[in-house]
């Protein structure tokens, strides 16, 4: 089953005219750089790094969108800004049609239960002193939900069962050190599900797990997506994104350089960066050996953003115009899908 053929729910909802679950519009996030005492004394101007520089995308219900890129491209910052864990400098983040960028922390609190996050490191994702039951119950206690103790226990059991830890009551009184990495990540997901969120942000959810259990956690996320959950997955692994995402957005130096349906991005990439990135993904089949198109130079540095197209210093096909012209995200000439966008003047 290819991702496109799997596509359900999400698209339909938004084509009904309703707002997408999550809409990010021209998001900009900047971090200040410490200039040091000497810098302060000499009155050097304060500098900022634009970690995210004008990013727009959306996530629908029942849709899994993957943000892909190398470290330092701004994908994690984007995820944190979506949840308002870091503050945006400008731009809008709308959740269920409601602009949350300006909401106060107090006003945001009830909304927080609707958007949950799971992190990369399963070994630190649970408090070592809390049982599975405590960990899954805690979000309800924070939000004052779940009613009585007994009712909460039922909800905890239900959540644990939903993440396929069976039999659930066997897991309730276990401590994290008695669980494997995959099981811990499942408990973390259960602790998110117990609040019945609409959006789940998954920041590299499996990169620290063993290969043999990765698929289990990802397949669980896939089933949750089918149940109508909107998922924003941050990953550096294009193979995972290709298999599980409905849409892929490729980021480079704080910008989305290409976005579109997963199959289209993988089979018909239009941006030279996406092409290079795809070519270096090692294939499983030894017979499928191709010479990868390796980009030279070091990983990009957000403190020194090149002029024009920010990819041009490493681009194998750059022309003179790329130095000056900062391309917009437009539908490429050779695109098949109507939703395909790439930021390259040659595409």
């Amino acid at each position, binding site marked *: 089953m290819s991702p496109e053929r799997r596509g359900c729910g999400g698209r339909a909802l938004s084509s009904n005219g309703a707002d997408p679950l999550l809409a990010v519009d021209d998001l900009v996030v900047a971090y200040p750089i410490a200039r040091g005492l000497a810098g302060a004394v000499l009155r050097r101007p304060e500098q900022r790094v634009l970690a995210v520089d004008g990013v727009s995308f959306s996530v629908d219900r029942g849709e899994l969108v993957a943000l892909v890129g190398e470290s330092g491209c701004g994908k994690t910052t984007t995820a944190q800004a979506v*949840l308002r*864990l870091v503050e945006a400098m400008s731009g809008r983040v709308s959740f269920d049609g409601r602009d949350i960028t300006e909401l106060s922390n107090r006003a*945001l*609190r009830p909304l*927080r*239960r609707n958007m*949950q*996050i*799971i*992190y*990369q*490191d399963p070994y*630190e*994702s*649970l*408090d*070592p*002193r809390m049982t599975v039951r405590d*960990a899954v119950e*805690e*979000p309800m206690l*924070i*939000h004052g939900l779940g009613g009585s103790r007994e009712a909460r226990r039922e909800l905890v059991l239900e959540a644990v069962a939903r993440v396929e830890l069976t039999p659930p009551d066997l897991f309730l009184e276990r*401590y*994290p*050190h008695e669980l494997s990495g995959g099981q811990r990540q499942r408990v*973390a997901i259960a*602790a998110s599900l117990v*609040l019945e969120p609409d959006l789940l942000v998954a920041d590299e959810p499996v990169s620290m797990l063993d290969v043999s259990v990765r698929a289990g956690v990802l397949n669980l996320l896939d089933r949750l997506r089918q149940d109508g959950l909107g998922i924003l997955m941050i990953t550096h692994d294009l193979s995972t994104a290709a298999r599980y995402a409905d849409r892929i957005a490729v980021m480079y130096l704080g910008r989305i350089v290409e976005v579109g349906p997963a199959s289209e991005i993988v089979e018909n990439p239009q941006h030279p960066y996406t092409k290079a990135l795809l070519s270096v993904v090692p294939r499983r089949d030894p017979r499928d050996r191709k010479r990868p198109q390796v980009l030279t130079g070091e990983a990009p540095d957000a403190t020194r953003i090149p002029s024009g197209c920010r990819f041009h210093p490493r681009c194998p096909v750059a022309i003179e115009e790329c130095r000056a012209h900062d391309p917009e995200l437009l539908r490429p000439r050779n695109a098949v899908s109507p939703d395909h966008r790439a930021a390259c003047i040659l595409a």
Partner: protein
Amino acid sequence: MSIVINEPGLIAEPEPIRSRGGILWDTIRRRPSATIGATILSLIIACAVLAPWIAPYGLHEQVGPPFGAPSWQHPLGLDDGGVDMVTLLMWGARISLVVGFAATLVSMLIGGTIGVVAGYFGGKVDGILMRITDYFLVIPDVPLMIVVAAIWGPSLFHIVIVIGILLWTSTARVIRAQVKSVRERVYVKRARALGAGHVRIVMRHVLPQVAPLLIANTVLTIAVAVFDETALAFLGLGDPSRISLGKVIENAFQRAAISAGAWWAIVPPGVLVALLILSCSLLGQALEDALNPRLRVAHVSARGFRLRPLVGRNADAV
């Protein structure tokens, strides 16, 4: 990331910490140095607490000549006032321990609070609090104690306060570092993302993780406080109305016990103080070691890996 991080057996699995008493008890049971420390410490504490009932003679009771030599009735002899040394040591340990514990309590309250607040909130709050701590750290504590004690006048309360407000710096730093690392753990980040309040996160996630380290630090601080009290008493700044171990040593020194050849008036109190400090150090150090993930296995040491000869197995099998 370390090379060995994924290999079992090359590193010790971090021991799960569940109950507050758990780590303390576990360390005492498993580490011989902690066992010794805890045994000595509890013996001394027992003697000190029970002094009014088990001390063989009265604290001010003259039972023989000044500097009377050790005998069956007085195994450690008599002091310059003819008071039995065993009795004196029991009561002295009582005061020394009271000062040690009380001063440690003061410094734990200050240091623990500053450490947790600085580590948890970070940023500007952290900057300011740590600057203050740095300044306190640099001011030499013994001279300042002397100056303050000299100006305020000698009294037990002053000594406790003086020692207490000068000892908190290392606690604050250790606790801050730990809180900072706990704050970055995923489960704390997630609780924050869930919208949990600061009080809840600190009480439920941060404090329980920091508590064992705080206990280890407390034990080490007691040792320092006992030492400082002994030093102050020796310099004549102790409470003149209370007999602490430091006071016992000072008395013997002032009354020329050495030239009188009365070693028993000066050796045992020092040994007792040393034992007290040693036991606290052993226990505290063992606890810290147990909690320190950085004490990895050495890649090089005097002893190499061992070879087991091929016995009974077919060595030619491929």
